[in-house]
């Protein structure tokens, strides 16, 4: 059996040169799909993720609709070409699981009661995978939901921590995930530090877990800034539009009467 590669050296440097609590570079672009109500394209390390939101819209099939609130339905999918060994197209158990936990995470922050009987349909496609896809997907979905004008208590930031070579580290890369000792993906409300998604794979002591949580919460706040920046850049010029809107709002009623004349 091949020897496990040395994931972290004595100086605390990882395979890609990062320190234990360093995130991979993240960039986000909001509003990239014209037909969707909201969308976001995200790159996180070598991960490439596309998220699209449609809704609130009529819930089909009707029998699933909730008369009191909207449903958040997430479909997470990995493109066949996103990984080294071609992934068979179609949902598998892992995709179904990630779709479920992502939907539950957002259901806890979206103001669902504002849209009874509707569905907010979220689609997230992984175009290139390099570990941490579920937290990357979640981070992209938060931006897409805000872009779609869905009212929420807060954006959610996704981040993961784990253990490699006995050291607790933030944001595992592909090899680190494959050969490491633990992987803990989370979704956090950055303002309140509340955790709305938590999963774990592997073994950690309570102390190691707490150390990882501290790193994750700090990182979530950094990621939140990147998300905010993407949304603000999308609408950076809207103040001028709003001035035009102010002037035009009264005109809309006059237009109506004019048309009838």
């Amino acid at each position, binding site marked *: 059996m091949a020897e496990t590669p040395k994931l972290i050296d004595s100086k605390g440097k990882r395979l890609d040169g990062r320190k234990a609590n360093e995130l991979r570079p993240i960039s986000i672009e909001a*509003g990239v799909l014209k037909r969707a109500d909201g969308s976001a394209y995200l790159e996180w390390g070598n991960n490439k993720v596309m998220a699209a939101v449609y809704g*609130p819209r009529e819930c089909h099939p009707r029998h699933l609709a909730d008369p009191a609130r909207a449903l958040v339905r997430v479909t997470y999918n990995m493109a066949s070409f996103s990984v080294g060994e071609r992934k068979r197209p179609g949902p598998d158990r892992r995709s179904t699981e990630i779709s479920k936990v992502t939907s539950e995470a957002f259901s806890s922050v979206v103001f669902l009661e504002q*849209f009874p*009987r509707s569905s907010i349909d979220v689609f997230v496609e992984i175009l290139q995978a390099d570990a941490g896809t579920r937290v990357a997907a979640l981070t992209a979905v938060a931006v897409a939901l805000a872009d779609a004008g*869905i009212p929420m208590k807060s954006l959610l930031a996704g981040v993961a921590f784990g253990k490699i070579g006995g050291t607790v580290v933030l944001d595992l890369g592909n090899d680190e995930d494959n050969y490491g000792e633990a992987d803990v993906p989370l979704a956090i409300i950055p*303002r309140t530090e509340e955790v709305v998604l938590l999963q774990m794979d592997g073994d950690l002591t309570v102390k190691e877990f707490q150390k990882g949580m501290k790193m994750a919460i700090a990182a979530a706040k950094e990621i939140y800034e990147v998300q905010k920046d993407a949304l603000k850049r999308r609408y950076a010029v809207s*103040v001028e539009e*709003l001035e*035009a809107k102010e002037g035009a709002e009264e005109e809309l009623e006059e*237009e109506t009467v004019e048309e009838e004349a």
Partner: protein
Amino acid sequence: MSSPERGVVVPGDVLDGEGLKPGAGTFSEGGRIYASLLGIRREGGGYVSVTPLGGRYIPRTGDLVIGKVEDLGPSHWLVDINGPHPSPLRVNEVPWKVDFGDTASYLDVEDAVLVKVINIDETKRVEITMKDRTTRKLTGGRIVEISHAKVPRVIGREGSMIKLIEDLTNTRMFVSQNGRIWIDGEIDDVVHAVKAIEMIESDAHVHGLTDAVRDFLEATYGKAE
């Protein structure tokens, strides 16, 4: 000179201010007010609110909108008004005397109508009417859809933009709150009007957009001569 990013808030941002009450697009928690939408922070009348920058059209009572008939039953039609749900239009809310089962003779699937939103109940069911004098069936013409947030830009300050397009393309237009625009005129003129609207939608933020649209339309018609 205001920085373009000033005042843009995201869900979860704190909205500070002395003695302000939570308005539209906000929520309060633990004694503080937060934004629930991506939008522009506004203050007025003791309330702080957030005007959304994007998202779907959400119907409000009093809106006059262009709808498309999606389905019909013996005593009602189902009209898509571009909101979260299609709205029922009942036979007692139209100006014609419709016999039971005869709904298709008056409005059929795919017909376009101008309807008014008269009520939205607690379950967000939207009731519409065609009995108002401002409503009617739309015949002829073409309907295009833009983001509802861009509607004010298409209308322009004091209706200047829409009048400019109507005059230069010799068409009649109606722009409704839900982002749908009805245009009537000669086929070629309608095509030019649609191009002008697309230009506004993609360049809504540009200064001097009115001049750019005027130049574009004058060039288009200049070439045709």
